[in-house]
């Protein structure tokens, strides 16, 4: 009789362990898979929002353009709080070669890798004759954070 009682107790413990393991396994699986998916989706959303936030902080204004036979010099001022890095520049629809530098127009000699906040920079683009300034042109700028700026220059 006592042996039977002991056997019943063992069976209950084994049953409890099986149910607990199954439940724990299922919950762990759901947490691992769905949790990871949710985290990835949330991270994607956060990345998009951070990019938008950075883009909103990119505020540049067009100041002036001069030209000579070989070069077009464009002056841009960053009145925002973020560094602005240009990714692509189009002069009258034609993409300019991506080897420009940002020269400080106020402090002679200083150069940057991007346009720092509160800085007026001179950017030089090689051109072929005739200068696009003769008839006017659209200057289109795409920034690293996907901001788009377009000015008619004449």
């Amino acid at each position: 009789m006592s042996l039977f009682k002991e056997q019943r107790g063992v069976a209950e413990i084994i049953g409890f362990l099986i149910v607990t393991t199954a439940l724990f396994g299922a919950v762990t699986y759901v947490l691992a898979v769905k949790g990871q998916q949710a985290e990835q989706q949330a991270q994607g959303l956060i990345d998009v929002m951070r990019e938008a936030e950075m883009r909103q902080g990119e505020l540049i204004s067009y100041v002036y353009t001069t030209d000579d036979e070989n070069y077009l010099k464009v002056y841009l001022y960053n009145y925002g709080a973020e560094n602005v890095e240009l990714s692509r520049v189009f002069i009258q629809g034609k993409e300019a070669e991506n080897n420009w530098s940002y020269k400080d127009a106020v402090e002679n000699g200083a150069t940057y890798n991007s346009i720092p906040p509160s800085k007026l920079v001179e950017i030089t683009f090689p051109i072929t004759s005739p200068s696009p300034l003769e008839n006017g042109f659209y200057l289109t700028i795409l920034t690293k954070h996907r901001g788009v700026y377009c000015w008619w220059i004449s």
Partner: protein
Amino acid sequence: MRNDERGFAIVAAALLVAVSIFFGIAAAVVVEHSHMVEGAAHAQQMQSIRSREELSLWIVSENTVEVVNKGALPSVIVAFLINTENGLVVKPAENVIPYLGAFENKTFTITGEGDLREFDVGVLTQLGNVFWRG
């Protein structure tokens, strides 16, 4: 504690952990969204202030420029722009603090560029506006 109670406690604890994780992720998204909205509001505010800035300038003598702030908001001059025969010359203000309160006027001295009356002269402000003489 009975076995079924133990099982229930384990599942409840696991669910609590799961709910905490999901709420944590949602909270991170909400915080980031509020930053984005704040950034958008700041950018719009900046554009609104920018559009209200209004300066006028004229050449008083060979090397002095008078700038008048016609707007109701203060302005800070970053640099003077002089369109010379050799291209654009950018000069910071030399003799006075380049701050103009609302409806205030100041005279600035610009030396080394010859007679300013012969060139187009402009000012660049901290808000990114450019105003040319005339």
